[in-house]
């Protein structure tokens, strides 16, 4: 076990990316993720082959990412909600051209310019598309600074493995807080990328990085093939934490900072004799549908705890197939549900269930 160091979540992401062999970063300052950009600005110019560039806009940054991704090298950009909206065009192109890249969203409250306090209101954007067209991102949601590092490292591997963009969906709290973290080992991609544009060296046909197919038959085929890959991802890459679910009568569903608060609420409720557990999605695409569905056979109801007006709750309802009531416990606009609020909503669900 490597020695633990104390780091901000944003810095842990940056350091983990470097250790995953990422030497190319393009960004634009925005609160609350700027420490990540600053960390890269400090480290990359001192590293062999390291490229840090502050782009003229989020749009340019994601297109620089597209360029590097086409060369087969590991590349990352990061931003916060309004900046991620600007990147959507590029993300759609990256998905359409089947390129691996890592995009970090340290979410803040919205819509519009919104605020700078933590939020999870980009859930729909991250999991249901964001940009135009039929595509998915692999979306990982860290719930500790340790996971900020570990899931960043994993994001690079999954992006390479499945040739698709992966997103780390964090929030302002995760980005700003410090916790002890054991940093992942140095590694490299290790995946061959014969499709990359690196110059033909006059030894092969030219490679083309492209998402344009004017023939609808051909375009449809690329979509079908991409979704076969997505099916593989859904089969292999679902990740979640099951916390005190063995004997639970009620299940909280929460990710990121909401899951941390939920655990405190569970401790308090169990002291009072209310058996509550937590299903914490670590991937929100693919969503842990099976875990929710199986829980529905055992529990009497679900509480979706979110920093949004209720976005993940739709996936929870779809997954549990109308077997149990699903209620929302939420705050929005940069506010965070409190332990007391979670207890209150869960108790209301429990009492309602008795009637």
């Amino acid at each position, binding site marked *: 076990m490597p020695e633990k160091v104390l780091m901000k979540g944003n810095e842990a992401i940056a350091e983990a990316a470097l250790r995953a062999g990422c030497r190319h970063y393009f960004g634009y300052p925005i*609160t*609350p993720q700027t420490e990540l950009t600053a960390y890269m600005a400090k480290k990359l110019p001192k590293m062999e082959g390291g490229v840090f560039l502050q782009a003229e806009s989020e749009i340019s940054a994601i297109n620089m990412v597209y360029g590097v991704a086409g060369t087969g090298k590991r590349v990352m950009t990061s931003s916060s909600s309004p900046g991620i909206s600007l990147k959507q065009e590029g993300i759609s192109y990256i998905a359409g051209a089947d390129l691996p890249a890592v995009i970090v969203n340290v979410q803040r409250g919205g819509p519009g310019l919104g605020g700078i*306090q933590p939020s999870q209101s980009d859930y729909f954007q991250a999991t249901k598309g964001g940009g135009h067209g039929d595509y998915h991102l692999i979306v990982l949601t860290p719930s500790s600074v340790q996971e900020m590092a570990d899931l960043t490292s994993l994001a690079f591997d999954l992006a390479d493995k499945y040739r698709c963009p992966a997103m780390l969906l964090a929030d302002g709290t995760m980005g700003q807080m410090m*916790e002890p973290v054991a940093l992942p080992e140095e590694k490299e991609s290790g995946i061959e990328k014969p499709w990359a544009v690196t110059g033909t060296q006059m030894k092969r046909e030219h490679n083309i990085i492209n998402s344009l197919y004017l023939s609808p038959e051909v375009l449809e085929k690329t979509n079908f093939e991409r979704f076969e890959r997505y099916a593989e991802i859904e089969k292999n890459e679902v990740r979640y934490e099951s916390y005190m679910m063995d004997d639970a009568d009620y299940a909280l569903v929460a990710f990121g900072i909401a899951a*941390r608060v939920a*655990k*405190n609420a569970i401790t308090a409720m169990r002291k009072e004799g209310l058996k509550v557990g937590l299903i914490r999605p670590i991937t929100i695409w693919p969503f842990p549908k099976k875990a929710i569905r199986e829980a529905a056979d055992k529990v009497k109801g679900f509480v979706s705890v979110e920093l949004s007006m209720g976005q993940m709750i739709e996936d929870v309802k779809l997954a549990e197939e109308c077997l149990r009531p699903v209620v929302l416990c939420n705050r929005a606009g940069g506010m965070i549900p409190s*332990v007391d609020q979670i207890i209150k909503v869960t108790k209301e669900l429990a009492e309602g269930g008795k009637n």
Partner: protein
Amino acid sequence: MTTQILIAGFGGQGILFSGKLLAYKALSEGKELSWLPSYGPEMRGGTASCSVTISDEPVGSPIIDNPDVLIVMNLPSLDRYESTVKPGGAIFVDSSLVGRKVQRKDVEAFYIPATKIAQDIGASNLANIVLIGKVLKDSELSRGYLEEALKKVVSAKHPEMYDLNLKAIDAGYNYIEE
């Protein structure tokens, strides 16, 4: 055991730095911890706060609704957070800057003119550290591993600051309330 500490004051008083010192102390002790700052424009001049949770168990939420220990460096912070402290908890007040006393009877209150003491020892911007010295003496936190933590938070570029910080800690630690 879990101790939740909330430090609050004006931006620029070193609120986040004091929190960092406690966080590094906990790390050196091999404890679990989280450190969560308030962030944004308020870091410059407005109210700043920092939540530090230190525990023998993995830390749940890093957000502190009801601190065991409240450290305040201005009046608005005392006004805002006094009622949130857990019964039986402790409030540490920089009495150079906060005119009033703690109203609650179910918490322990400690007063130390940290800003004045800091000026007296030639470390006028280390009132926050003087306060931490007092906290280490009178709260459930101990002084152990303080030196290790200080080494980590004081910039290597300014080694002289290490001695000055240590002096500030001692000044707070050895202060006897009148």
